[in-house]
Every structure is written in structure tokens, then in C-alpha cells.
């Protein structure tokens, strides 16, 4: 189950940020990933909301700046 969530997040990130899934890991963050710009950030939020049927707040938008941040936040909402 836990792994499943991680897998799904990686898939979504790979789709939006156009990077291979296996390159996404615990150190992946917006400041070290080309293509994780403000436009893609919105798309990523929308895609995660869609994938997990959850909603984020605007304050959360601003805190989702790395794979680990996202994982933590998504887990907390499921």
C-alpha cells in the first residue's frame, strides 16, 4: 500500500515533469529539477489531486516543493 502511493506519485511526477520515473527519488526537489517550474507546479498539483481524489490548500501548494514533501502531504490526506 505504502509502496503503491510512492509509485503513483512518481508516475505522476514523471508524466508532468517529463523525467524518467526511476530518476525520481528522495532528493528530487524543484530547485534541482529542470522543468519543475511554476507552470508545471500547478499541473503537478492538479494531477496529484486527480490521482488521489484529494484537495490541497494554497498554503500547501507552496510547501510541496520536493518529492518527500509531496509524499508526506499525500500520505497525511489518505
Amino acid at each position: 500500500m505504502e509502496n503503491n502511493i510512492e509509485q503513483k506519485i512518481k508516475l505522476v511526477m514523471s508524466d508532468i515533469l517529463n523525467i524518467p520515473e526511476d530518476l525520481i527519488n528522495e532528493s528530487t526537489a524543484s530547485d534541482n529539477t529542470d522543468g519543475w517550474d511554476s507552470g508545471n507546479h500547478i499541473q503537478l498539483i492538479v494531477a496529484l489531486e486527480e490521482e488521489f481524489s484529494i484537495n490541497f490548500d494554497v498554503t500547501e501548494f507552496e510547501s510541496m516543493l520536493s518529492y518527500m514533501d509531496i509524499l508526506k502531504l499525500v500520505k497525511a490526506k489518505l
Partner: protein
Amino acid sequence: MNEAHTSNQSAKREAQLREAFSLQVQTGNRDHAIQFARLLLKEFASAKTYRYLGKVVSSESVVDFGLKPYRIALLSSFSIEFMKDALFALGVANGLLIDFYQTGFGAFRQEILNPSSGLYQKPMDLTILAVEGEDWLPEIYGRYTLYSSNLITIKENFKHELTGLLEKFRSYSHSPILIHDLAQPLYCLLGIAEGSNQLGQRELVHDLNKLLHELCSRYSDAFVVNYQTLVSRVGGNHWYDLRMKHYARFPLSQEAIGELAREYMKYCRSLLGYSKKCLVVDLDNTLWGGVLGEDGLEGIKLGPTYPGSAFIDFQQQILGLHSRGVILAVASKNNQQDVEEVFAKHSSMILRRTDFSAFEVHWNAKVESLKHIAYQLNIGLEHMVFVDDNPVECEQVRMHLPMVTVILLPPQPEQYSQALLEEGWFDTVSISTEDIKRSALYEQRAQAEALRETSTDLEGFYRDLDMTLDFSPVSAKNLARAAQLTQKTNQFNATTRRYTEGEITKCLHDPAWITAVVSVTDRFGDNGIVGLMLAHLAEQELIIDTFLLSCRVIGRTVETAMLAYLCEIAGSVNAKELIGEIIPTQKNPPVRDLFERHGFALDNTGETGNSYWRLNCETSKVEYPAWFKFIKNQ
């Protein structure tokens, strides 16, 4: 457990559809690819699906598989780029390969007013001006107070600004333009007193929208998007996403994106001549509940109580479409006699037997029925919508006739009307009087066909038809119809050049161009404007740019009279020769021998298969057939 099971099935279905779509794209089967794209969008509408369709089509390994390149300029008061994925995907489902031009949010005024802006650097097929009411006129939305409201000034300013923008846009561009109307504020300042007071916002927005429609109607190819209708259909609380409004300057929800992109597609289809013309319906569990062959005349469900009431509603919607010019046909596996009895005797039937121009009721395959209907009514399969409750029938039609648009009805009859109407397949940017008359015209055509069978010789048939032709130059009066004819006519169309009203207007201002529309009246009624000729004079040659005739009057020598008319005009403008051009398309075999039949000599054949034909109209002009009466307006 159950839920997991369904979600697995759904994931499997999604994967299958994706694979099928991708395969059809790779193998270059455009029509099949479009069918799968539509299924994916229908069953799995999501940002993920939009992205998937986009990625497959844009992938480097994909060669051109026949999507029509289409340029859209997006001008907006918000970050409209978040709509691109959806628009691109819906474009694919409509046969388009969309390329976007876009500027930063809020830059729409500069972009339109500046003749050297990027907007005008390349010709656009469509320009969309998407401005939220709140951004046009904050003083009547979020900033509305009773202190500030000088309503007359607000209206005047709006009118002034909009006129300026439209005026400039029209002088710098021929692109059709869509402008959103203003949505109502979700909460009005006056609350429950709204409407009982002249200072209400609702009334004001209503007036401004009226003004917008009026201004747009003064310019060619300027169309209003009924944005407020979309907002109310989805519901304001679902339409807007206030988080995204504040965080990303993009006020729309994902649901709104889908709905709005779908709305834009209706305009694209209409402008490209892709609007559907004919609705083919099944009968059992479509027009009524139950199976006629088993339940009998008395047993089918059609009447004031559910589910019969839902079928009545559905028939009403179909009748509505028919009244605005959609041709109706039936394709049903049934006994014809039983069906005739329902039409003749069932007291709750809304649709009449005479509303249908073609009736395929037998036990043969529906694929054959559809082909036969297309042949009988002279309508291309790509202009047909097939509606059935049976997934197997739908699947067969998708597989064997992928150019047909297929609507599989949902299991609940109360949802039929929405399934029929939501995509707006039949929508056109304008409804002409010809559209309204059309259904009757197709019946006339059937009667004329019957007459042809009884007339012993062809000339006698033409004389019996008692036809009067009316030739008039293109003018403001018939401009919309002229443009519509170029967009819709496929079969008897020598060059198949599609023109907007704006482009035709250019010809009207150029003395070298000669334009004429042709109307035909016969003993069965007035067919309205059915033909168009556009020609331009170059030295002593009159070159026929466009020569087309609606299929409903093909086979009556109207084209001969049209060429005779051109010969006469050529004489009056001192042109010695008439030059015809044939650009072959899949659809236009009926027109290919037009010039040859009328004594033109083949001049040369171009590389792409188009041919040029030449007639010396001083020595061998085309004569008017003797069986027509004429009205010629100058």
C-alpha cells in the same frame, strides 16, 4: 472488494483504449484514432487523458496522419495556458492538430491594438478572447459598491473599449474571433433585493451582454461565446477554483476547462464545415422504451409516466433539432409494418413519420443502413451522427464506418437528451433561413426524385420541375449563406476553398471579383440559395475561383445555367476566356467532369492533381437550358 474489482476493470479498459489509440496513430488511421480519442475523453475525462493524447500525437515517431493543422490565438485576462492540454486533446478528437499562439495574461489589449504584435504575424484560424467579467469591469463585480456606481459611464466605457478592439482587430486580421460574454456575479451586493432595484448588478450584466452581442453582430466573423450559460450549466461554485485564481491567475476548475474547451470546439467544427447534418436514430430503447417486436404497440414505454416520459423528452429534443435543420433518419432492426403502426397510431409519439427523410427498418446490418442513408440523402458519412442504445451496434459502426460520429446512449433514458446534446455536434455559428427550411427541402428532393422516375424523358422531367433560377451578386443580405456554402459543400464543389465571411467581403470590395449566388425555386417549393460562384478578372480571362452547388439540386442542369451566366458576365466585362479549375478531393467526383461536359478544353494539370480548363466564350459560349425561367439581379 467490489470497488477494487470495478476500479481494476476500469483501469484495464483505459489501458486498452490508450493502446488502441496509440496503435491507430502509429499506423496512420486518422478516423479510427479519432474514435478512440473520443472514447477516452468520454470515459476518462481528466487532465491525465488530455496529456496522454497530446503526448502520443506530438511524439517524434508519429508521422502526419491527416489531422488538420489549425492555429489558435489565445488572448485572455488570465493564465489561459492551463487550457492548452485540454484544447489540444479535444482538437485531436475533432481531427485538428492545434498550434497555439499565446501572450501573457492581461496583455490582450496591447496585442490587439498594436498592428505589429505577434498576433498579426501569422494568419490565425481562430482567435479566442477569453476575458472574465471581473477583469473587464471590476467595478461591477468584486469592487461594486453603491458609492461608486455610475452605471451609464460603465456602459459607455465598455462600448467604447470593445468597439475600439473589434475595429482594430478586424482591420488587422481576417481570423474569426470568439469573445466571452459576461458571467453573472455569484453573489450580488443587493442580495435578495437584487432585481427590485435599478442598481442591481444582474440587470447591468444583462445589458452589457446585449451590447456585446449587438457590437459583435456588426463585424464579420465575430462570435460571442455564451460563457454565462456554461457557468450556470456547471454551476458557479464548481466552475471557479478560487485557489487557482489567487495562486496561478487561473480562475477555472478542471471541470470548467473541459466544458469550455468543448464549447470552443463547436465553433471550430462549424467554421471548418465539420458540423453534422444528419441524425440517424435507432428505435427500440431509443425513441421508446422496450422492444416493439416483443412488447407490441401497447406495450412499449412512451407516455406520461417514467420511463415513458423520459422518451417523450428525448423525442422533443430530436424534434427541436429537426426544426433547426437537422435531417432525421431511422436505422432500426424491426418489422417495418409494426413501426409504421407506431407512427400512425401511438398517441404519445412526438416525432412523425414525415419528420424522417430516410427510413431503414429491416434486419440487415446497421452499417449497411447508414451507407444507404448517406447515398439516398446525398450526405457524407462524416456528417452523420448515429445514436443507439446497443453497445455492439455502436462498436460495429465505429469499426466499419469510423467517419460516422457515434453516440452510445447511457442506460438511463432520462440522460439521453444530454448525451445527444452535450457535444453540440449539430451546432453552427449561424442559423440561416435555409437551415430552417432544409428538412422540408429534403422531403421535396425525395418527391422530385419520385417525379424523375415517372417522367419518361429527362427534358420532360426538367420542364415538369418548373424551375426558376435567381442570380444575385453576393451582398450583406446573403453573405452568411455564401460563406456557409463554401464551408459545407463538398460534393459539387470544383475547388473546395473554404471562406469566412470576412474573406468573401474582401472580394466584394475588389472590382476584379465577380460574385453570384444562385437560388432555385421549383414546383415543390423554394430551395433557397443553393449555388455560389466567385471569379476574378485577370486581363482578358475570367478565372473561376469557386463554383459550387448544394447537393439537393444536383442533376437538374443548374450548373449549366450557372456556366451560361458566367459566359454572359464574361462578355459584359470584356473577358475573352473563361478559366475553370478542378481540385480533386475524396468527395467531389460529381463535379470533376463539369468543365469537360460543357466544352472547356484541358489547359494543363498541376502537380497536385488539379486541372485547369479553358473556354473561349466569344466563339463557344455555354447556352442557358430552355427549361429554366430566370431572375437576374445586378
